[in-house]
């Protein structure tokens, strides 16, 4: 505790009163000044600390209780003064922090760009500290590397301030656990008028560093939120664009009712289905699934769809369509390590014959209404994109009224519950059996519902596509 700097006139007044009370011509001599010989002296203490002596005019007052009492009073008074000064300094510091906080909050409101926040911060720092230049360096959030965020110089050549004319403060923020994180360092140089920075400026710089830490942390959080929001919007756009790649409505071919839908596991999907009218009047129906998930699978899906459509416009033969598409696709899919499975069915113009081929896709299921049994539409071809040229065998079958074909992606039968048990072909058959009299769209929803009920709370791992065809209209 140092004697109060601003105690001067008040100290003179107090000494005068002590002189009157003690009847001694007393004088205060701080510690740093030497004691003259031939004068009685009493120690003046502030708490336990010696801060000076009270001197009498001569030696006659030595060991005088009045001189000791006066020294005690003076010590107490100086201690109160020091406490009051410390409080006043705290008040100034609090004022500075409050107003700084307000100003910095305005900065964040005005800009959430880290560079701009840094520049405004340095403008404030240079002005408040009376410095000609200020710099802000931040640690890289993921490593020890330092990043010079901003430098401000208010006078030409100010950045060459003398080496000893710099003030430095850590840029700190408190983590939620209460531990400080040193985010960087704030430096200011070239005190106004060529003087050195004082204790007040040092305190202020520390305060600025703390406020800067909070502010820059906020800026980073906002930046991350903005990046997250941008990514979310991009995913939304991708989903919107992808949904446009699916048919807007199901076709109404003669003698057949068709319904299909796709249930993505993420915003974008590697599954798809399509209907294309072939050159001979056939309707080509396809269900496609690209390996993997997410954006890469979705982009590949768009390519596969386009090429299958293009081939389907040239031929009514599923085998020819798949072979032609594979030749064009292999070059693109192979380097990316992707492949696509496709089940392709070509429905004759009268709606009674179904030619089909599969490129690595699960066999479609056919419910024979007249016989009351299921049949697998299996041909056994390889997925597209694995070899440069591949031949997918083709087969055909006749459809009778009430027959139901279910073409699906592997996501349906492999949908797993919490124990890892797949939905399975058996359960699929049970659902088709139970709802075989429903219309294709309803049956399709029942299949989605059953797969979802089977999965329970276990998250959907894969995209899920179902296409249902039913020969004839009305009940079987």
């Amino acid at each position, binding site marked *: 505790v140092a004697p109060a700097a601003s105690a001067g006139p008040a100290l003179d007044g107090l000494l005068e009163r002590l002189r009157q009370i003690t009847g001694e011509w007393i004088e205060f001599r701080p510690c740093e000044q030497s004691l003259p010989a031939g004068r009685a002296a009493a120690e003046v203490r502030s708490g336990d600390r010696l801060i000076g002596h009270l001197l009498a005019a001569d030696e006659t007052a030595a060991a005088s209780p009045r001189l000791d009492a006066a020294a005690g009073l003076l010590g107490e008074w100086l201690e109160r003064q020091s406490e*009051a000064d410390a409080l*006043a300094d705290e008040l*100034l510091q*609090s004022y500075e922090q409050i107003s*700084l906080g307000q100003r910095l909050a305005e900065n964040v409101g005005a800009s959430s760009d880290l560079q701009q926040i840094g520049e405004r911060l340095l403008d404030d720092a240079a*002005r*408040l500290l*009376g410095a000609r230049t200020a710099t802000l360096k931040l640690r890289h959030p993921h490593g020890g590397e330092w990043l010079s965020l901003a430098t401000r110089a208010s006078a030409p050549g100010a950045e060459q301030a003398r080496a000893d004319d710099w003030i430095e403060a850590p840029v700190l923020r408190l983590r939620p656990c209460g531990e400080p994180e040193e985010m960087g360092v704030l430096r200011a140089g070239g005190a106004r008028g060529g*003087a050195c920075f*004082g204790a007040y400026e040092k305190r202020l710089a520390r305060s600025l560093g703390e406020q800067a830490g909070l502010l820059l942390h906020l800026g980073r959080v906002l930046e991350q939120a903005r990046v997250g929001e941008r990514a979310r919007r991009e995913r939304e756009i991708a989903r919107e664009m992808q949904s446009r790649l699916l048919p807007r409505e199901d076709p109404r071919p003669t003698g057949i009712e068709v319904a299909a839908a796709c249930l993505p596991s993420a915003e974008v999907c590697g599954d798809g289905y399509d209907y294309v009218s072939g050159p001979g009047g056939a309707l080509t129906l396809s269900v496609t699934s690209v390996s993997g998930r997410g954006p890469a699978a979705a982009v590949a899906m768009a390519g596969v769809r386009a090429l299958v459509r293009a081939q389907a416009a040239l031929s009514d033969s599923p085998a020819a369509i798949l072979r032609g598409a594979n030749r064009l696709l292999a070059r693109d899919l192979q380097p990316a390590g992707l492949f696509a499975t496709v089940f392709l069915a070509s429905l004759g113009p009268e709606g009674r014959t179904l030619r089909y081929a599969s490129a690595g896709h699960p066999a479609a299921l056919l419910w024979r209404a007249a016989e009351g049994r299921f049949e697998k539409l299996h041909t056994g071809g390889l997925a597209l994109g694995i070899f440069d040229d591949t031949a997918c065998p083709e087969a055909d079958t006749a459809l009778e009224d009430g027959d139901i074909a279910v073409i699906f992606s592997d996501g349906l039968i492999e949908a797993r519950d919490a124990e890892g048990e797949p939905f399975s072909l058996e359960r699929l058959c049970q659902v088709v059996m139970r709802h075989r009299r429903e219309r294709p769209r309803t049956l399709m929803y029942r299949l989605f519902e059953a797969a979802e009920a089977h999965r329970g709370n276990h998250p959907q791992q894969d995209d899920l596509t179902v296409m249902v065809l039913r020969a004839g209209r009305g009940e079987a």
Partner: protein
Amino acid sequence: MSAPARRVLVADGEACVRRALSRLLEQAGYRVGLAADAADALAELRREPPDLVLIDVDLPGGPGLRVLADARRGGRIACSRVVLLTRRWRESDWAEAARRGAEALVCKPFSPADLLNRIRDWTAPVRSGAAAEVAAAGAGRPSEPEV
């Protein structure tokens, strides 16, 4: 810091604010007079007219604006610049302060560093070029404001 031996009178009812401003100003090289109420303030103005008066709007014993008017009427602070301090920003106070020729109405808590910078400007010797500007600006102010 260079120390202009300019005098500032701090008139505020709060002891901690007086002490804080006194330390801030003394460390910056100013001579400081202190007043805890309206009577003190008038006495200090009478004793030695300061270069700048920092006076609280809600000064005990008489609002700062009234003290300012009383002192101006007596011609005691004709040369002093006046800055009003306040805890609550009121548009009417600012309008009144401006009408009476105050430099500024400063809200507590203020930024001490900012205030000190502004005080340096307010107490800076008037340059010959700036004198005309000050005179022109002063022409709009009533030299003997009404109470």
